[in-house]
């Protein structure tokens, strides 16, 4: 039952093929037996209690499609009464006294939260190796990374440890692990989903989204996650459509843009041929393919690695050892308290980005770095704007390679290159997806779809149509 989609499980629960408690127990057993290290916290008791509530509602016939579906929640979302660590020693002892808006919405939908998933510390990383709780293994090959930062969520869905998971994407943190683990991941338009209660990495880029087995499941979950939140001033007062309505629309005549910059050197040949084969499939389905150009995408990495560190250097200042979280022992004075709490509480990559950000925001450097990077963001957005005058959707690879070996990339800058194709969508605030599109040496390859603002329905429709024609998304690793 752990390979089933939301749609199938909902039918099973409704038909009483098994109870929600049985289903939840099954997942909990799998989690406890798993050595993927996908979870930081397993919420056994809470999950079973929620399952019981769901069973009661099901027996009364008072259900939605998500009632009783067990999911895994990225440990970046605050969950009342449950540890919320963001993968950091800094918050190892932090039990949130409040629920993130997303957590609240998922609770209200009568979902069952199995636990909180492992992640790169404060969402900084592309391999999930930057977690205080240790690396996560890729379910397709335990020697490989699952991608990051939502690596635990991706591994959990791919490894059959949850039906779906939540993720967050600041520079590719939903799409890249979804790609490397062979699942479907959607980063919506910036502002589509409330950020309230989602521990901030880079506020102007962070966006939550669903990580699922199929595009149809993603549409169902997005229906619950999306919407304006008065607690988040950057969430949009944009109407939330039913994302499942247009899934079956024909994509005949769809115009696909392939940015030449996404197929340049650095892209693995076999990954490239899988992507081209997927594009071919779309052509067979009646789509038209055009080559387009995003000339400023080359500056996405430098712009991102200014904006994100600047924002994080400020966002993480509240973690000072004063009110909650890690505090060093026997501080001599206030400065010593700050210095040692933060030096001991944060991991290397987090400290690196805080340092870069604090430097770039310093007096005399602000214009040269932060302001310049913001200007580059505008240029990147303008590139997309022009392209979307000619095409309906942009396609390309999510990641230049398939999952690499755990421990193999030691140089931070090489690691940053893993996000080369995903960063632009965050900088421009556009919605983007990763969908399974093939395998290279038994490791999944993800196809990236980037849409215009608020075109989530269209992206899900395109992805769903592809999944009706292909079965990459239904392949499962051996352990499933």
């Amino acid at each position, binding site marked *: 039952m752990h390979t089933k989609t939301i749609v199938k499980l909902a039918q099973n629960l409704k038909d009483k093929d098994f109870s929600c408690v049985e289903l939840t127990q099954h997942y909990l057993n799998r989690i406890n037996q798993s050595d993927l290290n996908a979870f930081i916290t397993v919420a056994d008791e809470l999950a079973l209690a929620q399952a019981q509530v769901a069973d009661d509602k099901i027996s009364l016939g008072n259900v939605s499609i998500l009632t009783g579906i067990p999911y895994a929640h990225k440990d970046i979302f605050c969950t009342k009464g449950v540890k919320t660590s963001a993968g950091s020693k800094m918050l190892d002892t932090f039990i949130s006294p409040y629920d993130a808006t997303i957590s609240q919405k998922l609770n209200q939908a009568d979902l069952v939260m199995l636990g909180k998933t492992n992640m790169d510390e404060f969402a900084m990383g592309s391999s999930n190796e930057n977690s205080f709780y240790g690396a996560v293994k890729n379910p397709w090959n335990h020697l490989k990374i699952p991608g990051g930062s939502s690596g635990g969520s991706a591994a959990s869905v791919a490894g059959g440890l949850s039906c779906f998971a939540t993720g967050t994407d600041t520079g590719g943190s939903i799409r890249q692990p979804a790609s490397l683990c062979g699942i479907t991941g959607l980063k919506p338009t910036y502002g589509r989903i409330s950020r309230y209660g989602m521990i901030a990495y880079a506020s102007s880029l962070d966006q939550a989204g669903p990580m699922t087995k199929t595009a149809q499941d993603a549409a169902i979950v997005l229906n619950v996650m999306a919407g304006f939140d008065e607690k988040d001033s950057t969430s949009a007062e944009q109407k939330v459509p039913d994302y499942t309505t247009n899934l079956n629309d024909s994509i005949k005549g769809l115009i696909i843009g392939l940015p030449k910059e996404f197929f340049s050197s650095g892209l693995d040949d076999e990954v490239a041929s899988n992507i081209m084969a997927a594009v071919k499939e779309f052509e067979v389905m009646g789509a038209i393919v055009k080559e387009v150009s995003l000339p400023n995408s080359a500056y996405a990495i430098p712009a991102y690695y200014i904006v994100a560190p600047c924002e994080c250097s*400020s966002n*993480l200042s509240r973690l000072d050892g004063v009110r*909650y979280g890690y505090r060093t022992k026997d501080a001599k004075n206030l400065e010593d308290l700050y210095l040692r709490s933060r030096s001991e509480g944060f991991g290397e990559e987090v400290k690196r980005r805080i340092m870069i950000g604090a430097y770039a925001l310093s007096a005399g450097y602000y214009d040269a770095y932060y302001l310049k990077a913001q200007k580059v963001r505008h240029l990147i957005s303008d590139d997309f704007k022009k392209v979307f005058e000619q095409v309906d959707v942009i396609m390309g690879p999510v990641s230049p390679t398939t999952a690499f070996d755990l421990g193999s990339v030691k140089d931070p800058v090489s690691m940053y290159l893993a996000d080369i194709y995903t960063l632009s969508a965050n900088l421009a605030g556009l919605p983007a997806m990763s969908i399974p599109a093939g395998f290279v040496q038994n490791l999944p390859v993800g196809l990236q779809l980037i849409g215009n603002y608020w075109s989530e329905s269209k992206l899900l429709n395109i992805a769903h149509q592809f999944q009706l024609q292909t079965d990459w998304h239904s392949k499962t690793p051996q352990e499933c």
Partner: protein
Amino acid sequence: MEWETVIGLEIHAQLNTKSKIFSAASTQYGKKPNSQACVVDLGLPGVLPVLNVEAVNKAIKFGVAINAHINQRNVFDRKNYFYPDLPKGYQISQMDWPIVGEGKIEITLDNQTKIVGITRAHLEEDAGKSIHDMFDDNTAIDLNRAGIPLLEIVSEPDMRSAKEAVVYAKKIHTLVQYIDICDGNMQEGSFRCDANVSIRPKGQKELGTRAELKNINSFKFLERAINLEVGRQQDILEEGGKIVQETRLYDSMKHETRSMRSKEEANDYRYFPDPDLLPVEISDELLEKIRQTLPELPAQKKERFVAELGLGDYDADVLTSQKPLADYFEAMLEYHTGNAKLCANWVMGELSASLNKYQIDIQNSPITAQALSLLISRIGDDTISGKAAKDVFKAMWNSEDSADKIIQAKGLKQMTDMGEIEAIVEQVIANNAPQVVQFKSGNDKILGFLVGQIMKLTAGKANPKQVNELLRKKLS
């Protein structure tokens, strides 16, 4: 050498909104520590600020009241620094795009009027409080104040003496209360002043190096702290020394200022636009609406007092100098439509003297405006004399009783029965024949003696004016 003092003020006015600037927590003063700090004020992971529109409206109100330029698109920035009472590790403030731009204020000192430029006024959140004397070895933190909206009003370095600085500060203090954006309570820290002070040789154009004085919580201390600092700077310069740009803390107990931090030690605040908040857009309609709701300002009120109530310039100035004083005076007029001048005299005379003596704010006056106006009515309708009224006032100050009740109890009511007065007058004329003869032979002064005799017999309750007239009539 002759020195010229140059002063600019940074005034922090807490805006009197019900909830905080970025959270729904209450702003009430004096509550149990940390009882009014919600998850947003505590800076928990994941929380986000949401701008309180009321704070924006009040800032706009200030801007239109001083005819300043309003930046209809203004931006919140993060000012980054670490301090235990700053929960997020940054203060949300406004740097490049403050809500209120340039404006000006007219001040008057020793009959000289001058203009003080306002550079800007921006919105920001207040920090919490560190309490160092509650526990032996630890500092306690109270975050009730964290997130209370502040309007920081920055002046140009246009003031040339401590006295001018005080007049300017009082002017702002009065204004913010008039337009009801700040309660002006300096003891509770609702209205705080920092002074930038420098000196330069008279005639020199460029400014001297300045020191910023902090921790000034009364107008008296503002004047003292500035004069102290001017003296310190003069001593240094006259001995050939150099002024260091620094922040200095004023200690009112020791009457000294001491260095807090020099420019080199100052934080690099790493300002950048807060990505959690959208730029504030102020529509023409909102601006106009707030302009329309602006109440009568001190200058307008003063003009009206002179033109419509016939008060003198000085009286009108004093009565409008503080909002509560003006409110009290106007409340009296509501009950006592008669003599505004008499009301003004009593408010500025007996009432102010007593309030000063007992250090009571006029808002807490034991004699309400209504009660005082009743007393004044009793002078107007000749029930009591002005002299007796002062006794009644004293009795009212110490009791809850009304003027009428006291007049009754003390038997202070003036005699109004003309027949009774006439009888006494005739009795005095009969008993003082020699004095009557003197008067009739041209000694006008002797009349006073006769009046005195009559007043004695009436126990002071006769109206001296009436007695006078009656006496003259009888003797003519």
